Structure formats: C-alpha cells, structure tokens
C-alpha cells in the first residue's frame, strides 16, 4: 500500500527489515566525506584491531543514515523532523545488520508520527536504538 498521508500510517506498523550495505568502502567513504581523514578505525579492519576493536567500525552517523534511508524508502512522503540515535555498541563493517522501525504514536492534528528505530547485527544483538518524528504532507 502506498503511504501518502498520515491516515495511511497505523499504530504498530513496521518498517523493514532492511539490510543496508555495511561494506568497508562505505564506512571509508563516510569518514572521508565528513573529514575524518586520519581515522583508521573506519577505513581498515587492521586499523580497527590496532585500537582494540573487532574490526573497522561503521561510523555512528552511517547507522543514522541507514535509519533515515529506511524511513524514506518505506514512507517516501515523510519528512524527518527529528532523528535521535543512541550508539549502544559497535557496528562492524562488512558484517550484515538489520534495520527496522515501528510506529509508536500518531498525531493526526499535526500530521506527525513517532517511530522507534533499531539496528541489530547478524547475531541479533542491539547495536543502535533511536526514535524519529516524521511529518506527512497535508
């Protein structure tokens, strides 16, 4: 079903699961784009291990990007008013993760909806949690 207005959104509606591309090249691209030019923890597994990590990290902001992309993919008419992410644990590049969201509140007067956001790794462990407020067109 195409979601074009606040009336198309239902309490408890689930978005995803979606498997974003966690390739190391994407972490590297983000690190370079935002100016973290000397951050081997995002650009090489060896660099991450030298810092005591299991491998190269997916930057937290890329995790936030995955969550925003999920919302826009499933509700293209939505405008994200607020997105808030808590980085609970590290997300490792080149390891699959699953991105989901669920609608937790709807306000038809303001045409807004609240969503709980979640990224899990392939072991099912929670890595990033968050919330978002979206606004739908009139």
């Amino acid at each position, binding site marked *: 079903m195409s979601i074009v207005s606040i009336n198309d959104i239902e309490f408890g509606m689930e978005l995803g699961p979606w498997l974003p591309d966690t390739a190391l090249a994407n972490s590297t691209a983000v690190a370079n784009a*935002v100016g973290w030019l000397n951050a081997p923890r995002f650009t090489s597994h060896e660099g991450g291990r030298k810092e005591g990590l299991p491998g190269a990290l997916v930057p937290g902001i890329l995790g936030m990007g995955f969550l*925003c992309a999920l919302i826009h*993919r499933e509700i293209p008419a939505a405008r*994200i*008013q607020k*997105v*808030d992410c808590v*980085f609970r644990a590290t997300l490792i590049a080149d390891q699959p993760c699953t991105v989901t969201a669920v609608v937790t509140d709807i306000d038809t007067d303001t045409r807004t909806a609240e969503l709980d956001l979640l990224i899990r790794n392939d072991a099912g462990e929670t890595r990033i949690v968050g919330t978002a407020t979206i606004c739908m067109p009139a």
Partner: protein
Amino acid sequence: MVDIEELKSKYLNLEFARLDFVVDAEKSAIVARVSGETRPEFIDPAHPEFEVFPAYIASLSSGRHLPINFPSLGGIPVDGGKAVTSIKPVPAGVSLDGRTHLHDIYDKSGRSGRMIFLVSRMKIYDAAENLLALADSRMVIRERSDA
C-alpha cells in the same frame, strides 16, 4: 564525585563555540548514497530542492565539543549518540553559522560505576539568521573514581 547540578549551573546554555562553514553538496550526497538513501533531494546535488542529509548534519557536531574550561571528568569521552532536528531544509553551498552550547548534563549509575552524559548542541543558522537545524552530540564519560 562531580556535582552534576554545579556543572549544569556553570556550563549549560552558554555558547562556547561558533563556526562559519559551507556544506559541500557532493560530500553530503556521498553520505546519503552509501546510507542507501533513495530520495533525489538528498542524493543528487543537481536537484533543485537538494538539501543536506540528516546524517551529514549529525557529523557537524562530532568531536569533543566542550567549553575550554570544562573540568576533566576522568575517562575518554565516547560517542554515545547523535540527534538531528530539522526545522528548515539545510542548503549546501551557502554560508552557514553553527553555534554550540552544552544543552544537557546528566548521569546514570550502574554496577560498573557512574556514567556522565554531556549533550552539546549546535544550532545551525543561515546568513539571514534563520534557525535551520539542531545537531546534538551525546558524549558519555565513565567517571574516574578519584574525579
């Protein structure tokens, strides 16, 4: 033990950093594309309604954003999270002004001790003084026992 209320009374809501910057549209679009974003106004810099991707906005508040005289609390700050509030679309290629203050300080205690959370907030304005977005960065510091 650090007195959270005292820290709040001394440091909250006082602007301590100001930065003029211009967002490179292509760099924002790269972050959007590798995130899997599909909406053209985020991934195509030539789109007439192109705007900066929220995750790129979040990157603007990265790093150790604390007042210069803020006391040391012990451990190394860890990136605990980010939040972006969009008030108006943030354009690329134009002069923007980021003003940062400490927005919140709070603590949580657990079995491994007390964690202190510092939320710095960058308010992003355009040249006409319109508030466009808020970028919050949540730093977490495990309190050192002798702090």
